[in-house]
């Protein structure tokens, strides 16, 4: 029993260990930010590596907590993301005097996501969801003196409180309709009766809120813009990824019987999300807000993949989230470095960036091409596999809309590329000197963007996991 406990919950345990370590360091010692940062980076790296060791499938607490290889892999994607964040935003982190708290919050959110991914019952899911939400709301407010920051976090906490109210109402209805909250028992009891559909809609709305699917997305842009870039990137990559994973489990495993219902729902929402996200992104000037809308559009594509109730669906979504982690973090990282050093966050400020900073320009270009799905970057493969998975249901209309949205998205990604590479600028952003770990993070992202696509075994590995 104890062994199972230690083995199956090892990643959660590692995270909690790190959290407590930080707590002790905070209260106990006078460690400088620098050393602490490198320590944390090391620990996170260790955590990431540990994610690949001794993975076993099994369940605890009477099925409330389950885990398997795929879930472990999903968790390691998330920990990789966190590790990259700790690298990319080193400068910003060093400056803030509350760095340990920041990591504690982020890690507890991560812990929540881990639990969410391997949750086996609605109760566990709900607790994990809250655990992964509330700290982030606090993190959003981390620039304590900035007005926008606190506005952002206010919007986030209130909307998420509201959404969790909706979620709970849905859960209660499900409970009423089926009498169970465990994922394993529920499918048998689902028959698509109106009450269940209603409950499902409530439940799904909560997912949609976290995943910022139109029309539940409105908080996203504001929060991303207001919050510190590190937090925005965490929100856009880590929390979105975790929700995408759990949404897979929920839709495929739990609500599988109601596939007929949710396929159409996902299709409609996906189209709406892609279109609205793209249309809003077209206009944006602030790079963070721009990335926010672009990530909304990306979620639309994730939904395309999810809509196919199949192995390809799972694997392509996981694969895409992995690629998306690299691409989006790279983009956020560049934006973060620039705004950290110059305070400039407008796309127009990026004009002529290539003249002064070729390296980060190329990184940014790679990231954006990957987001736009241009070969040979990994994003191309990710998008393509998502669409392929979605096409397996054979709705030409759906796929055509998705494909056409690729063009619109390309249009606004090219806006940034044009600013960086083509436009003239009298006083471009001056040469930026980065923290070495930031550089390392960017290189990792770049390598990931290039390699994850071309090395096909990554995808094969994921496919084998999702079997």
């Amino acid at each position: 029993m104890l062994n199972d406990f230690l083995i199956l919950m090892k990643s959660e345990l590692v995270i909690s260990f790190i959290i407590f370590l930080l707590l002790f360091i905070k209260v106990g010692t006078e460690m400088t930010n620098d050393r602490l940062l490198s320590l944390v980076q090391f620990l996170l790296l260790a955590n990431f590596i540990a994610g690949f060791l001794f993975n076993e499938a099994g369940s605890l607490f009477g099925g409330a907590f389950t885990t398997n290889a795929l879930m472990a892999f999903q968790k390691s994607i998330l920990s990789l993301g966190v590790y990259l964040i700790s690298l990319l935003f080193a400068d910003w982190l060093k400056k803030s005097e509350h760095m340990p708290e920041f990591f504690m919050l982020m890690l507890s959110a991560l812990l929540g996501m881990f639990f969410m991914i391997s949750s086996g019952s609605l109760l566990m899911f709900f607790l994990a969801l809250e655990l992964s939400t509330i700290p982030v709301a606090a993190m959003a407010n981390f620039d304590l003196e900035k007005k926008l920051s606190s506005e952002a976090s206010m919007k986030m906490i209130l909307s998420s409180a509201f959404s969790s109210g909706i979620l709970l109402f849905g859960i209660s209805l499900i409970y009423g309709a089926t009498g169970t909250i465990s994922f394993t028992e529920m499918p048998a009891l689902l028959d698509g009766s109106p009450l269940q559909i209603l409950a499902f809609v409530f439940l799904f709305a909560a997912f949609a809120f976290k995943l910022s699917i139109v029309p539940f997305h409105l908080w996203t842009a504001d929060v991303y813009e207001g919050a510190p870039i590190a937090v925005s990137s965490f929100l856009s990559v880590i929390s979105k990824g975790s929700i995408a994973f759990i949404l897979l489990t929920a839709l495929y495993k739990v609500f599988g019987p109601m596939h007929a219902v949710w396929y159409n729902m996902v299709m409609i929402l996906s189209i709406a999300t892609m279109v609205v996200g793209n249309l809003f992104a077209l206009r944006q000037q602030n790079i963070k807000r721009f990335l926010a809308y672009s990530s909304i559009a990306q979620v639309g594509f994730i939904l395309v993949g999810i809509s196919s109730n199949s192995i390809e669906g799972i694997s392509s979504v996981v694969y895409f989230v992995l690629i998306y982690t690299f691409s989006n973090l790279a983009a956020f990282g560049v934006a973060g470095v620039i705004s950290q050093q110059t305070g400039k966050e407008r796309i127009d400020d990026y004009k002529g960036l290539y003249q002064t900073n070729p390296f980060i320009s190329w990184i940014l270009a790679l990231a954006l091409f990957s987001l736009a799905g241009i070969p040979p970057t990994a994003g191309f493969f990710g998008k393509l596999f998502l669409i392929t998975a979605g096409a397996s249901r054979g709705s030409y209309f759906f796929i055509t809309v998705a494909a056409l949205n690729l063009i619109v998205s390309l249009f606004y990604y090219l806006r940034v590329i044009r600013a960086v590479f083509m436009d003239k600028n009298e006083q471009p952003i001056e040469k930026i000197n980065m923290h070495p770990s930031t550089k390392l993070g960017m290189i990792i992202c770049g390598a990931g963007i290039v390699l994850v696509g071309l090395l096909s075994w990554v995808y094969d590995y994921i496919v084998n996991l999702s079997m």
Partner: protein
Amino acid sequence: MMEPGLYHLLFISAALFFIGVFGFFTRRNLVTMLMSVELVLNSVNLNFIAFNKYLWPNKLDGLFFSIFVIAIAAAEAAVAIAIIINLYRSHHSIDVENTEELKF
């Protein structure tokens, strides 16, 4: 005199839910909005208990769930209040109307 049945309770919880939602939509004071969310959560608790008592009396999931909901609500409220206080520091007001700089 008849004892109240499931549907009475569901009616009340539904009413609570919508009152909460209405409050959330209309009140301008952030704290009040938070309280309206609490109303929603309580309606949920009522649901759980009602369902548990009337439909699935031999399963205690509902009861436990409601306990957890209460706990989480407390946590949420704590963080929310902290954020609101911080907001007050910067905006000198906790009126939702004054916090609309981030848009479009």
